[in-house]
Each structure stands twice: as structure tokens, then as C-alpha cells.
């Protein structure tokens, strides 16, 4: 082996070639870093300003109302008395950093899609025409590109995961602008369609670095939790190393689809279906064949996932009408280069983000319409 090691040293040295350090490189890196910091600060400051404006508006409205009636901000929001901007009728929305904030309130109406953008904004856009409805940038305590929208429940409460450095937390934002951390060191949050259970991924033993290898399901009424650890090796990876949960999706009858990756480049991906009512360990769960990721369930129990059908390497959106059958390409989305899929809380509408970070919505006629560009993550 030592012969190889010696040769390896000289070979590596020869492979690297000569490098010239750019004379102003450090200064340029420093300036870019400062520019990014200013953008983040501006986003946070404008969020605070928007919150202040909203509170002032709510106070004025309350003062003008019948003195015998106590009107709360929450009631105002739900009855749409607070000034709500009209949707822009422009399709698709191109989201850029630095556009103005308007109101903080949102209603969780069925056509509202939450998006975080690669430019650091957090927005609600209209799923029908791509118009920007509400700018929530800065209201979750950091730039939008560190935010991963998870769900919005019927009361308009927005569930999301936000990264603080390498440590994620799952939190909620209520229509009146209150935010609360629900679980720390928790990513890939998924809220069940009845809003009673929260599933999230975490790192075992409270580690603050490394891949999240544990799935937790919390009953939100009792706060009791069940945990599953020890992800099985994915089909393409016989030596699991650094396996981590990337997304979770609730299905019918307590089923939870767990997507995870492994490998240095996260080159292996797999989806297993966990019955949270009966499966004691991941070994009891069902590992679906093939390289799959980003699962989502529709209301009729169809599982969608991005993957390559057996014997091919062309990735597309696949539909599993039954977990026992071979999946078929999704008619609306299979022609797109989709990387992420989400289904709304009714299980009726599908949104997808492609490799170019463009957000699409699929309709029941088998067509996908483009909603917005530069989208990092979305929830409906």
C-alpha cells in the first residue's frame, strides 16, 4: 500500500497545478459579505416596519368602531377589515429582494401559496395568477431564504422551519404576527391534514450538526411524542453514512412518507412509508423500490414522488395509485424537471418546484401553470 500512497502524494501534487491568489480577492469577498448582510438587515427592518404599520392601522380601525364593541386585531384580520392589498394580476411573479412590505396579515385562504425565495423574501402569492398578496419578509426573525414553509392550517397559522446557522427550528406565525417556536432542532416539518399531529426530523441525541436521522411525531393536543431512529440503507447505498431525512408527508390512515438521502453528494435518495400507528421501528416500515424523493399524498391516497422508474435514469414526477403497483408518470408534471412537490391541505392541489426554482401548480386537467420564479421552497 505504501507504494500507492507515495505515488498518490506526487500525483495529487501534480494534479493541482499552479494557483495565483487574486490580490483584491479578500476585499471583494468582504464587500460581497457586507452587501448580503445589509440585505438581510433591510429585510428584517422592513418586516418590523410593516408590523408597526399594521398595528397602527388596527388601532385606528378599533378606535373608529362602535365604542361598545371590542374589536381585536385577529377579528379584524379574519373579517378582512384590515387593508389587504389587491392581488397583482401579473403572471408569473418574479420575486426580487428589496421590494416593499405591505401588510402582515394573511388568511390561509385556499388559493394562497407560501413561498420563500432565493433572494430572501417570504411571500404569499395567489395560486391562480401568481400575483403577490402579502409580503411576510422579516416577520419570522430572519431572511426568507432560510425559511422552509411547511403548511398553513385553516386558521391561517403558518407553519415553517427556519435555520439559524446549521440548527433548524419549527415554528408558527399567527395571523396577528405572533411567532412561536414549536420544536427546536426540528426540520422537514409536516402538519397532518386534521392539524392534530406534527411530524418533524431531528438529529439523534440533540446533536447540532450532522444529518437529521430521527423522525418525531408529536400529538399537538397532548404534546406526547413518538420517535423512530435508524434509517435503513437506501437501495443504491449499501453502506449508509450520514443518512438524513429531507422531507416528510402525511398520507391517509396515519401513514407518513419519509424521504431521506445519503452519500457525500446526497446521491442516494429513498422513500419509506411508515405506519405511525403500528410501526415500532423503521425496520417495520415499507421501503419503496428505486431512487425516490420529495413525496406528497393527494386526498384520494395517491402517493406522488420524484424519481426514476426502474431501468431508467430520467427523473420525473411519479404517481403510486397503490404502493403495490408500478408507478406511472404524472400527466401534468412529468414533462417538467421537478425537484420538490407539495400538496395543499385539502389534498386536491399540487405545486411543484423545478430545477430552475420555478414554481408550478398542477390542475385536474393535466396541465401545470407557472406561478413564480426564484422560489426556494413553498407550501400550500
Amino acid at each position: 500500500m505504501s507504494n500507492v500512497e507515495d505515488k498518490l502524494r506526487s500525483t495529487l501534487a501534480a494534479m493541482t497545478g499552479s494557483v495565483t491568489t487574486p490580490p483584491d480577492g479578500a476585499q471583494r469577498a468582504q464587500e460581497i459579505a457586507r452587501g448580503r448582510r445589509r440585505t438581510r438587515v433591510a429585510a428584517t427592518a422592513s418586516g418590523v416596519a410593516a408590523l408597526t404599520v399594521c398595528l397602527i392601522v388596527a388601532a385606528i380601525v378599533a378606535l373608529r368602531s362602535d365604542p361598545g364593541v371590542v374589536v381585536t386585531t385577529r377579528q379584524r384580520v379574519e373579517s378582512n377589515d384590515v387593508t389587504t392589498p389587491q392581488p397583482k394580476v401579473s403572471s408569473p411573479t418574479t420575486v426580487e429582494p428589496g421590494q416593499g412590505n405591505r401588510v402582515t396579515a394573511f388568511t390561509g385562504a385556499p388559493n394562497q401559496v407560501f413561498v420563500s425565495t432565493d433572494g430572501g423574501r417570504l411571500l404569499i402569492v395567489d395560486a391562480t395568477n401568481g400575483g403577490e398578496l402579502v409580503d411576510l419578509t422579516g416577520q419570522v426573525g430572519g431572511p426568507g431564504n432560510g425559511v422552509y414553509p411547511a403548511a398553513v392550517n385553516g386558521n391561517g397559522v403558518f407553519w415553517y422551519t427556519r435555520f439559524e446557522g446549521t440548527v433548524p427550528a419549527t415554528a408558527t406565525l399567527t395571523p396577528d404576527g405572533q411567532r412561536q417556536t414549536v420544536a427546536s432542532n426540528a426540520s422537514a416539518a409536516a402538519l397532518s391534514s386534521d392539524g392534530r399531529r406534527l411530524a418533524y426530523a431531528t438529529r439523534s441525541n440533540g446533536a447540532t450538526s450532522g444529518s437529521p436521522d430521527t423522525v418525531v411525531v408529536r400529538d399537538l393536543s397532548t404534546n406526547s411524542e413518538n420517535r423512530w431512529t435508524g434509517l435503513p440503507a437506501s437501495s443504491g447505498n449499501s453502506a449508509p453514512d450520514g443518512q438524513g431525512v429531507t422531507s416528510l408527508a402525511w398520507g391517509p390512515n396515519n401513514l407518513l412518507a419519509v424521504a431521506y438521502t445519503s452519500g457525500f453528494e446526497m446521491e442516494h435518495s429513498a422513500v419509506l412509508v411508515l405506519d405511525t400507528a403500528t410501526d415500532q421501528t423503521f425496520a417495520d416500515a415499507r421501503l419503496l423500490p428505486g431512487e425516490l424523493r420529495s413525496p406528497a399524498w393527494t386526498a384520494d391516497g395517491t402517493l406522488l414522488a420524484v424519481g426514476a422508474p426502474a431501468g431508467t435514469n430520467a427523473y420525473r414526477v411519479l404517481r403510486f395509485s397503490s404502493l403495490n403497483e408500478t408507478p406511472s408518470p404524472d400527466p401534468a408534471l412529468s414533462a417538467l424537471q421537478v425537484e420538490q412537490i407539495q400538496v395543499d391541505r385539502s389534498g386536491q392541489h399540487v405545486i411543484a418546484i423545478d430545477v430552475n426554482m420555478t414554481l408550478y401548480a398542477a390542475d385536474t386537467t393535466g396541465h401545470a401553470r407557472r406561478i413564480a420564479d426564484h422560489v426556494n421552497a413553498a407550501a400550500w
Partner: protein
Amino acid sequence: VEHSLVGTADRDVAMSGKVFSDDDLARLYEREYANLVRVARLLLGDEGAADEAVQEAFVRVFGARRRIRAGDEPLRYVRTVVINECRGRLRRRRISRRHPHLPDASSPPPEERVLQDDDCRRLAHAVRQLPARQRACVVLRYWLELSEDDIARTLGISAGSVKKHSHRALASLERALEEQQ
């Protein structure tokens, strides 16, 4: 040999219990940029991408300098950021390969320069064919001469995994040499 500086740089740059200043990091840049680009070249096999990866890593480090403490050993921190940046680029390259309509983000491997020796040429080819994690272990071990513990901390994996990946990589490289003889 330039890379022999790396072993002492952590100690040199480690400051006495204070947050690092932009000047500290600028000095680290001047001293380590070339070495880090070489590491990135070995991981990515692409000179342009390697330059970009290291520059982007330093942008991130300048942006996060208040979070770096003296005990963090800034060179290790920067090295980890560079490797994570390379991982991200390898991953994006893999994504572009997954979608056949997109152009492949990778560029062809650099010209063979000083590889006059047949064994070295075969070895260079075999290094490029290694799975990414094995390649990273080999580069950190035989180019930067890091210990197994240091490699483990840099890559965020266990020392046992480092040993396993390094052993497999060396076995593959040895086979590549033997097969040609």
C-alpha cells in the same frame, strides 16, 4: 512545499479569545487561498469551479466571522466551508445530469500537466473516478496530510467512517494500478 504550511496555520491564526476581525480573515485568505483552491480542484476536477467555490466560501466566512471563536480554529472552519461548497456544486452537477435537457454543469477535467509517468496518469484518472466521499478523504489525507480525527471533523463524519472510506479508496487505486500492469 506549500501545503506543509497548513499544519501550522491553525495555531498561527488562532487568536487570543476574541472574535476574528476582517483583517485576521484577510490574512488567512492571503495565506491559504491557493491551498484551498488546490483542494477544491482535486474535489471538483474543474479549475474555474474551484476558484469560485473558494471565493464563495470566503464570502460566507466573512459574513459569519462573528460566529467564529478562537477555539474554532478558523482554518478548519474555512476548510469545512470550502468542502461544503464543493459538495453543493457536486450535488448541483448531479442534479443537472439527472435532467437530460439541461447542460452538464461540469467542465472536462484539467489538462494533464506534469503527469509524465504512466502510473501517475492512471492514478489521476482513478482518483477522479472515486466516489466523492472517498475522494475527499484521500485529498485531505494525502494532499493536506490531515489526521483521521481532523478529516472526520472537517467532513462531519466519524473517524471510523474516514478509516473505512480511505481504506476503500486506496484499495481501488491500488487495483487501478495493478490492472494496467
